[in-house]
């Protein structure tokens, strides 16, 4: 999931910095929000499965 999220973040960065190409300026905030939602899902999953964490 870490690599997946990093790739999504890199995609948002490329789209955000190249807004004139492929409607990047319009899609970048949406992909950003999708990444953020996925991050929240992984956080909730981490909270609800404490046995996978051995602090």
């Amino acid at each position, binding site marked *: *999931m*870490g*690599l997946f*999220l*990093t*790739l999504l*973040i*890199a995609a*948002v*960065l490329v789209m*955000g*910095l190249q*807004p004139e190409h492929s409607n990047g300026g319009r899609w*970048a*905030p949406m992909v*950003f*929000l999708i*990444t*953020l939602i996925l*991050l*929240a899902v*992984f*956080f909730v999953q*981490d*909270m609800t499965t404490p046995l*996978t*964490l*051995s*602090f």
Partner: protein
Amino acid sequence: MPPASTPLSHAWLSLGIFWGVTSALTAAVGMQLWLHELPCALCWLQRFAMMLVMVAQLTLLGAARHGRLSITHVATNHGLTILAAALGFAISTRQVFLHILPGDPGYGMPLFGLHLYTWGAIMFASCILASAFALACHTRLQLGQGAPAALLRVSIWAGIALIAINGALVFAMQGMQWELDGDPTHYRLLRFGSP
């Protein structure tokens, strides 16, 4: 729109937020590489939230670099910054609470007396305050007067490099498995580190 009444510009404020987050992430990466402090799953989730804050500010800085900075950029990117920083703050706070009991040594090595997740909570709260300030006082801040182009260019490339380094590190740590380790002891892909 009334003229801005302060010398502070949106570009400089974004640079402040960006370099604050970049410093925290660089410290975490440095401790991982030089002191072999491997990040746990929650640490990685905080890093992703930091990278999202960086990306939102980099988009704003990219527009400033090309002289296209508008109030729409400011509103969108500071709004996204607040969302990412709020999630990061929630993750950091959870990790602080996991180690809040007396006698708990905490996870990892402290930096200037505080653990990295505590610094993360402080940094995320600061980002929320700074972005809220930028939104609330957007007419008071200079829109046209940007930071030096060279500084913006260096910031953008530093952000890209840091995200790429984190991509390589997370791949080295998780290898081909989907989940990240809660208490990692070695790099799964490279098969080295402590056993």
